[in-house]
């Protein structure tokens, strides 16, 4: 039995790693490809990420960099997708004592078209992207919770919106 895949999407791990804290996003081995057409691998989409704190000057406006990585073969809508019917990528911050965050600064997206409809342009993030977060923080260590909301697609299909919880660890001194 075969399911007709109109446009063969790469079956890949899709992972976003919050490198804000961190730094190493490690996809599962053998992630991005499937085997033969008759025996495709069925990997699970998971990611592990580690945290490494950033350092910013205390008591004045400083910029944190939140680095994210999308596994090859997938993209997510940018913060400003071209259609209001699409779900934008957004970062929601949790309150943290001693930290006054500003509005996140999202990168510009890049144009993307589904292969079978090259005329339809979307605005997406693919590969690595950085969200910059202005903060004014009191001296000391801070751990601020946040959630990245995004909606991902591959080159033919889309997946339900997801939330990625992260912790932004930094020292203000």
């Amino acid at each position, binding site marked *: 039995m*075969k399911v007709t895949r*109109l446009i063969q999407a790469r079956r890949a791990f899709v992972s976003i790693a919050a490198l804000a804290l961190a730094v190493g996003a490690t996809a599962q081995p053998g992630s991005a490809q499937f085997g033969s057409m008759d025996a495709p691998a069925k990997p699970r989409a998971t990611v*592990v990420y580690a945290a490494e704190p950033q350092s910013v000057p205390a008591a004045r406006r400083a910029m944190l960099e939140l680095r994210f990585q999308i596994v090859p073969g997938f993209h997510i809508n940018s913060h400003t997708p071209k259609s209001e019917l699409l779900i934008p990528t957004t970062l929601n911050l949790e309150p943290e004592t001693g930290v006054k965050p500003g509005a996140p600064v999202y990168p510009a997206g890049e144009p993307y078209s589904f292969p079978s409809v090259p005329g339809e342009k979307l605005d997406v993030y693919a590969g690595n992207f950085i969200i910059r977060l202005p903060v004014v923080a009191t001296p000391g260590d801070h*751990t601020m919770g946040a959630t990245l909301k995004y909606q*991902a697609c591959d080159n033919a299909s889309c*997946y339900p919106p997801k939330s990625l919880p992260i912790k932004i660890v930094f020292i203000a001194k």
Partner: protein
Amino acid sequence: MLFAGLALVVWSGWKNLRERRSAMQEQQNRRVDLIPDSQPAAAGDSSAGESQLRGKPAPAFTLLDLNGKKVSLSDFKGRPLVVNFWGTYCAPCKIEMPWLQEFSLKYAADGFRVVGITYDSEVGRDTIAQTTQRLGVTYPILLSTPKAEKDYLSNTEALPMSFYVDKTGKVVEITAGLGSKDELEAMVKETIAAGGR
């Protein structure tokens, strides 16, 4: 006094270090599902539940449309039909749906029909209606249920997903993802031709 002060500073530094290590460890241990627990069915994925439908009778359903009216698969008995699962967040779905609309009119004389089943029904009828209106879709749009998703989609969350049902009620083709308009029309024609005259 001085000793006590120094001890306090050392203790506080140590405690702080432990907390930071703990936070870091928590980060390292965190495993996050990003895309779907399940991946889309790819060509030849015989393990996918949806592929097991091919050649078999389309699973029966009775679902509510946007006006709250019950619509059943049996309402389309004797007609070639596309059952199209879509979502309001799904860009390729919204590219494909106007094509399905066009074909539903173009091949109406052959008895061909299209029914859309909204995967993200939780966004509400207003949002769904607004979306389909903008897309120019007039074929029936139904609200999905866990049972319909289990029967048709099995464990995949990939959209769009379409099931081509011939006039005998048998699933003759299944597609996952967006293809070209020509490919879609070819499958509509095959579905119309299938099941005999």
